[in-house]
């Protein structure tokens, strides 16, 4: 990697990228394949916290994210500030969004439609799955058409999963994830450590072990601890990224800009720059994340090959999705948390299922500029669209788990945070309904792309990261490729 000082960064570049997480780096991955001679500057607010540093310190960043915003909501919000962004802290679940996720308004009359379809993203999903690479099963085509075979074999499911999958009509599948099942290029295989934000073997994809070709590209320069405050606009074009380092102001000029901070700071920087569009800083949120604990009678759990083994899609796309959100069950094989069953001799007769529940993004929830130094995050809490769905999902569990010797099912808690910031710079067809278009280009300032999960117009049903990466690769291809 070629790091530069702030003074060296205050130059003129072909491309200036703000932030270095999934959205930014997958954009650059494709962009540099198409335009390898472009001079690229990455401005990263955080430091370069190496993988070894993270393992030693047992944290992903030296910046406590709660000091970077004012939270005026009942929920918590988490992210990683540092080179590589959330590639450091993520747990690597890598399912595609479901085809129905892209057409919620058309199919069910709620939320919004995306300006891209599942089919539009299939080629880019495949590219990302091969870059990371993703380990997954070969039977997902029925739910996610065009999946085919994953580059790595799937993780071993638990014996509880095997029993559920023996049930006729099941929708229970091994979760695709970017944790290796086979060693590759010096990276070890997943050892089911159940602490994936500090993956001890290198099995989990991160920017450092999977996108070094981008970070170390001959024409890429990286300036860390560069806090971008705003973008300068002139004659409808973004001209400069204004940033501070060590209390001094600098500006990096460029022909093209990629804003890939995160769901809090993308809209914050847009607002500070006077860059508008419908929904800048609004429609912000994340899925509801709940935990259910199941006591088993005689069945020994925790024999899967990774931290979460299967997901169950039986309540993803239902006829009632107009009234209650998609719910997806994740079958946990995490032996550390919440811990073993507290009954002598029956320690393993316990299964935890976590549930992701879709909510409708509300225009009133978002990132606000109150004139202070920090963005203010306001969120009113989950709507009945999510809470009703959670109730229904828990109610459906006895039937879902009928193949298992279940003693009891207890809804345990709704977690305060999921870690999937979404919305706040949504994509859509026109500036009347969104901030960016299907190519992630700002509707008015056409030399500005806003990448990452902030562009999502709806939450979707499953983990958003693979889709954010695929959207970035598609955008880069359409922006830099032959017209």
């Amino acid at each position, binding site marked *: 990697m070629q790091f530069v000082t702030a003074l060296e960064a205050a130059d003129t570049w072909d491309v200036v990228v703000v932030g270095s997480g999934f959205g930014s780096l997958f954009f650059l991955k494709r962009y540099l394949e198409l335009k390898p001679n472009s001079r690229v500057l990455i401005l990263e607010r955080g430091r370069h916290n190496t993988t070894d540093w993270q393992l030693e310190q047992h944290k992903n960043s030296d910046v406590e994210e709660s000091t970077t915003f004012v939270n005026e909501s009942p929920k918590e919000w988490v992210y990683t500030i540092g080179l590589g962004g959330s590639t450091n802290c993520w747990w690597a679940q890598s399912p595609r969004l479901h085809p129905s996720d892209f057409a919620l308004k058309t199919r069910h009359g709620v939320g919004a439609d995306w300006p891209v379809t599942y089919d539009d993203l299939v080629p880019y999903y495949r590219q990302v799955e091969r870059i990371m690479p993703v380990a997954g099963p070969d039977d997902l085509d029925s739910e996610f058409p065009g999946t085919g075979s994953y580059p790595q074999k799937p993780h071993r499911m638990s014996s509880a999963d095997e029993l559920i999958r023996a049930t006729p009509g099941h929708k229970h599948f091994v979760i695709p994830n970017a944790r290796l099942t086979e060693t590759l290029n010096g990276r070890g295989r997943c*050892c089911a450590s159940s602490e994936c934000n500090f993956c*001890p*073997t290198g099995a989990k994809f991160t920017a450092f072990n999977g996108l070094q070709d981008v970070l170390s590209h001959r024409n890429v320069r990286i300036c860390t601890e560069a806090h971008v405050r705003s973008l300068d606009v002139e004659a409808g074009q973004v001209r400069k990224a204004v940033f501070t380092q060590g209390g001094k102001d600098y500006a990096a000029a460029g022909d093209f800009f990629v804003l890939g901070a995160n769901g809090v700071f993308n809209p914050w920087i847009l607002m500070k720059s006077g860059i508008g569009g419908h929904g800048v800083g609004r429609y912000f949120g994340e899925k509801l994340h709940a935990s259910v604990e199941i006591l088993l009678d005689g069945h020994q759990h925790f024999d899967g*090959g990774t931290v979460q083994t299967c997901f169950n899609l039986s309540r993803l796309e239902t006829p009632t999705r107009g009234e209650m959100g998609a719910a997806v069950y994740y079958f946990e094989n995490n032996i550390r948390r*919440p*811990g073993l069953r507290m009954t002598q001799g029956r320690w393993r007769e316990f299964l935890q299922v976590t549930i992701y529940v879709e909510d409708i993004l509300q225009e009133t929830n978002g990132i606000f500029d109150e004139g202070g130094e920090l963005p203010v995050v306001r969120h009113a809490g989950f709507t009945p669209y999510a809470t009703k769905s959670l109730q229904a999902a828990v109610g459906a569990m006895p039937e879902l788990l009928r193949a298992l010797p279940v003693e009891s099912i207890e809804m345990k808690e709704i977690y305060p945070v999921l870690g999937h910031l979404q919305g706040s710079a949504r994509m859509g067809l026109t500036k009347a309904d969104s901030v960016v278009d299907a190519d992630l280009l700002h509707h008015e300032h056409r030399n500005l792309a806003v990448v990452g999960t902030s562009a999502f117009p709806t939450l979707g049903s499953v983990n958003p990261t693979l889709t954010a990466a695929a959207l970035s690769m598609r955008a880069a291809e359409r922006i830099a490729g032959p017209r």
Partner: protein
Amino acid sequence: MKMLTPSRRTFLLGGAGLAVVGAGAGALAATGTLERYLAKLVLHTFVRERIELESLDVFVAEFISHADPGTISKATMLTRTARLVGVKGLDVALVGHDAYADFKRRLVTQFLLNSDYFQRASATVPIHCHEWTGVCVNPFARFDDA
């Protein structure tokens, strides 16, 4: 990239070999107050088992060194209360208390995963706490093909 291995923290463990074997909550496995409370809670939970006390001391020290500040704060408060009512009395008094249950579950789970409890030849063999595993801790995980 440097890899963490289970042996990485071996230097912390010194020469904890076979030593005193305790049976029952009356044994004092450690000298510090917080350490003593945690050791007693383990002994109370496994009152019918025999545990090598010297290795339990090491486990408790490792548990404390790996715990987050919230867990330590919670354990310190429990230690103070246990001075008044005893470990067993506190355990009974807090039945059904979610935060206590979560804390105890975490402690017991770590004890089970950082000892030879699941690997012992028989239940009569004293439990030995081994090197703090820290990573790759699931002894039941299957990595072979289905």
